[in-house]
């Protein structure tokens, strides 16, 4: 059996993978940058936690409640802000993330405010986390390989051309945004029922930025890149834990190094598959062969 430390790490990786999958749909495929997805995670966490503790709902119902609230708020926010140009939309999501934190602290009678919300039942086990993470990635992967994913991609690549072939770009931006909010809310619910105690600070802008960094490092237009990057970036700070105060420095340096060495991200525009690996190996062999031919 795994140590509880290892189990905890795997659960954390799974929760982050779910949230990052949503951001991958939004940023990697639709080309919209959000710095507010931790806000949706907070909504999912608090709604599901309050449902479990105050209303004694079953775990699944609590999770669904969190996802639904995140989806509704995401829909409303998207409706108001997705007409804005990319950079203004980014600022709006940044503001949203802050507002969620402030509101959670303000309504301290319900949420426990800055002191946090405790006594959440520990329902997120290792297996539940793993199965739900794999399921979430599978759902996202299937969506990407359908007309929905294609329409997201069209929005990212060339909005004018997308409209010219009949794609309602606003509608698909809205859809990607709501989906990313739902994944974040889902991750938040699992998070709350794993840590049993949540405070607003857990869902601050750093957390939002981390999701976006993860997707950028993993490479745009690559779900597998996002997932690999998420596993690496979640475990990286743990590897450097013995270096205590330097670990975030190393983490930052690693991110900068990846972006400098591979500007399109680890897997930009490619998905991890056996076909892709074979192609890469053949390309490499071809390159060395032609070099040998020259000498």
């Amino acid at each position, binding site marked *: 059996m795994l140590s509880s430390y290892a189990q905890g790490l795997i659960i954390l990786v799974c929760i982050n993978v779910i949230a990052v999958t949503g951001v991958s749909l939004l940023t990697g495929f639709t080309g919209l940058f959000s710095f507010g997805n931790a806000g949706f995670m907070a909504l999912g966490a608090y709604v599901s936690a309050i449902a479990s503790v105050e209303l004694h709902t079953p775990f699944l119902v609590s999770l669904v409640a969190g996802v639904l609230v995140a989806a509704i708020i995401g829909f409303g926010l998207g409706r108001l802000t997705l007409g804005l140009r990319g950079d203004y939309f980014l600022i709006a999501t940044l503001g949203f993330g802050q507002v969620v934190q402030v509101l959670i602290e303000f309504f301290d009678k319900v949420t426990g405010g800055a002191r946090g919300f405790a006594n959440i039942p520990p329902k997120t086990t290792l297996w539940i986390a793993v199965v739900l993470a794999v399921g979430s990635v599978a759902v996202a992967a299937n969506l990407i390989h359908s*007309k929905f994913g294609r329409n997201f991609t069209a929005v990212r690549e060339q909005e004018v051309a997308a409209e010219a072939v009949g794609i309602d770009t606003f509608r698909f931006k809205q859809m990607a945004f709501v989906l990313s909010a739902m994944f974040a809310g889902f991750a938040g619910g699992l998070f709350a029922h794993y840590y049993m105690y949540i405070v607003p600070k857990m869902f601050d802008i750093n957390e939002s930025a981390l999701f976006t960094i993860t997707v950028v490092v993993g490479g745009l237009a690559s779900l597998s890149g996002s997932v690999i990057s998420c596993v690496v970036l979640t475990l990286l700070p743990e590897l450097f834990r013995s270096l205590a105060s330097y670990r975030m420095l190393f983490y930052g340096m690693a991110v900068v190094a990846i972006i400098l060495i591979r500007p399109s991200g680890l897997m930009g525009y490619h998905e991890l598959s056996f076909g892709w690996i074979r192609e890469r190996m053949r390309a490499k062999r071809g390159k060395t062969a032609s070099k040998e031919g020259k000498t």
Partner: protein
Amino acid sequence: MNSILSIKGLGKKFGGVCAVDEFSLELEQGTTHGLIGPNGAGKTTIFNLMTGIYHPTAGTMALRGTNLVGLGSYRIAQLGIGRTFQNIRLFTQLSVIDNVVMASGVDATYGMVDAIFKTRRYQRDEAKIRKRARELLDLLGLGGVSDERAGALPYGSQRKLEIARALAARPVLLLLDEPAAGMNEEESMELVGFIRDVRKRFDLTVLLIEHHMSVVMEICDRITVLDFGRTICNGIPKEVQANRSVIDAYLGETTDREN
């Protein structure tokens, strides 16, 4: 003959500048109509008004009786107006075939649940879309490069790919913005044959902007000549060629410039 597109008194002002003034056009189903005029005459602006990229400041437009004024670009495309762009707008990072598949939304009738569970309906639609995309690429002679990155294609092929993509959305009216730009005489004539073929095969009506006079005179049933946003002549190619004001405003001027 029945009219497919009806434009009356269309106008567009950018601030104080009148880009298009009192433009009217009736297109008969199954014909090819040319839109010519010197640079800055307002030809592309008319395309942009027709496809909802700009909204007109005056006039009416209707496709088969359905009003187009005020609709979003995507809605107009769904109603059946397809187009290409003067400065090519492909999905350059994607493969050639994906560019065509991307535009096949009309053929994908499945919902999100079908997509998530890859139901039979999803598989049937997707197979159909792929097959049709390959057919369109073959038709345009791009079948051999379907897995290449669209941005890596030579200029002429990119123009063709834009037409294939527009066709994938199943238009009834196709707007071509300088399809022969950058092509030599031989390639232009090949394009003329191709446009004729496509128009017949898909039962299309074509409206095209073009500077190659040989292409315009060869393929168009009727021609409208614009200058400074105004229509100065409208008729069959012979009439247009003989029209004094057209020669002054456009044909004469271009030859001067070219020499």
